[in-house]
């Protein structure tokens, strides 16, 4: 059984400490909803797990199935079974999408795919993601709309079949139909047995992918961990109760590299939207 174990993880970005000892475990088949106010380290955690060199791990351990991820470059982490769907996928000028996907898929295999196998897999994946196959001829993410980029991330997840997938706001900028397609893609991988760590500000996605557990990241640490009922509570009440019940003062970053959106804003806004309909 696959298992991602994060212990006392400390991470700095541009000499500023963002994570101050994160502990989390994600098992195969589990879906963890990672919540928390903006600027408290959710994206940082995902980027650090994947090995983004801009995020420096200064303490703690990170293991996948007992293998030390901290000793691996991002490509090796991917091959070990991790996948990160990025909040802002890069646009790569001049790099044809199909060429990229072929390189990525072959990197995960000992024997290269035949052209037939590759195009078959590609066509099916594009169809499932509701992306016109023509898009495979376009440059990677170049000129894609926000929604197209997100679906393209899910397409890559489908083709690479990770053991543990990390999704960073995969639902932002998606319309209802696209959200449905993305949720179905996640459901499919869940059935296959993949584990998920999902960041979202909206209850809508969580309602569709049924997290098995939830954790709240505050001040660079996991403040609360528990069942999916935490998602409902934050969706309706915001983060204030954590302060009241647990006595954790929620820090607001000033002038740091992170944004300073007030806590609970997204969850609250979504609730109002729902109420209107």
């Amino acid at each position: 059984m696959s298992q991602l174990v994060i212990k006392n993880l400390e991470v700095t970005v541009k000499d500023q400490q963002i994570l101050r000892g994160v502990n989390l475990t994600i098992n195969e088949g589990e879906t963890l909803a990672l919540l928390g106010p903006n600027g408290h380290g959710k994206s940082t955690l995902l980027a650090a797990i994947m090995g983004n060199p801009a995020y420096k791990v200064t303490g703690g351990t990170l293991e996948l199935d007992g293998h030390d991820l901290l000793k691996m470059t991002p490509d090796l982490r991917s091959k070990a079974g991790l996948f990160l769907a990025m909040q802002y996928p890069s646009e790569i000028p001049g790099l044809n999408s199909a060429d990229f996907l072929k390189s990525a898929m072959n990197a995960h295999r000992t024997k290269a795919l035949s052209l037939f196998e590759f195009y078959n897999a590609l066509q099916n994946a594009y169809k499932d993601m509701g992306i016109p196959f023509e898009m495979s001829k376009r440059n990677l993410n170049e000129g894609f709309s926000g929604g197209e980029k997100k679906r393209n991330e899910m397409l890559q997840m489908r083709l690479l079949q990770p053991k543990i997938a990390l999704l960073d706001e995969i639902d932002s900028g998606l319309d209802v139909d696209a959200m449905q397609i993305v949720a179905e893609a996640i459901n499919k991988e869940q059935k296959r047995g993949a584990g998920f760590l999902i960041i979202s500000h909206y209850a809508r996605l969580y309602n569709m992918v049924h997290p098995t557990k939830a954790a709240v990241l505050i001040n660079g640490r996991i403040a609360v961990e528990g069942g999916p009922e935490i998602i409902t509570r934050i969706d309706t009440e915001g983060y204030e109760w954590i302060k009241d019940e647990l006595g954790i003062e929620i820090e607001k970053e000033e002038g740091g590299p992170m944004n300073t959106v007030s806590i609970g804003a997204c969850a609250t806004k979504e609730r109002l939207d729902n109420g209107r309909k």
Partner: protein
Amino acid sequence: MEENSLDKRIVYVDDIPASFAFTVNEGESVHLNLASFKDFRDRTIDIDVLSNGSLEGAFADFSRGNGRFVLNIHLRGEGAKCRWSLASLNNGSSEKHFDTSVFHEAPHTEALMSNYGIARDNGKLFFAGVSEIRHGSRKTKTRQESKIIVFDPEALGRASPVLRIGDNDVEASHAAVVGRLNSAHLFYLESRGISEEEAKRLITLGYLRPIESFFVDEKIVERIEQAIEGGI
């Protein structure tokens, strides 16, 4: 720019004359295809574009050596247009200068000047050039793009675009980027299992390959492809 059987095409592979000049006549479309795989030398090209004429120029440069490539395009007639694209790979200890300039001398003229380069080893690559809108050239559009990726610590790249604007009611812009390979791009590809070496290769290919689209001769395209694959 749309291809038409009546279009003129001027093609030089390797033996580009040291200096030459031509005129794109009224309403004419001319494609200039330059490809260089051997020695880089001093070159000077002067082109006049008359009313409603259009010039599409492309230079695929995979040569070695030192020198200065000078291109001056004069958009002399109303509605004259030009598009220039350069892809230059700079290996070894070459020092190459590209001075590509466009002069808007009539109203409603348009220009897009793009120079893309890669500096490796201890090569030096310089992009300069002026986009000048002369007085009276209203409703003119001009854009200058320069991008150099510097691969190695000893390599050097410099882009110094100049815009000179002598009229109001025009659109002028430039973008100049010189730097190492984008680390976010590298991380994105690596996070998909692609090795650092392969990721660098893919990004570089993507950077140089678009020049191929300006060439119609399959043999030249094939040589460019080989030069790209072999050079990076």
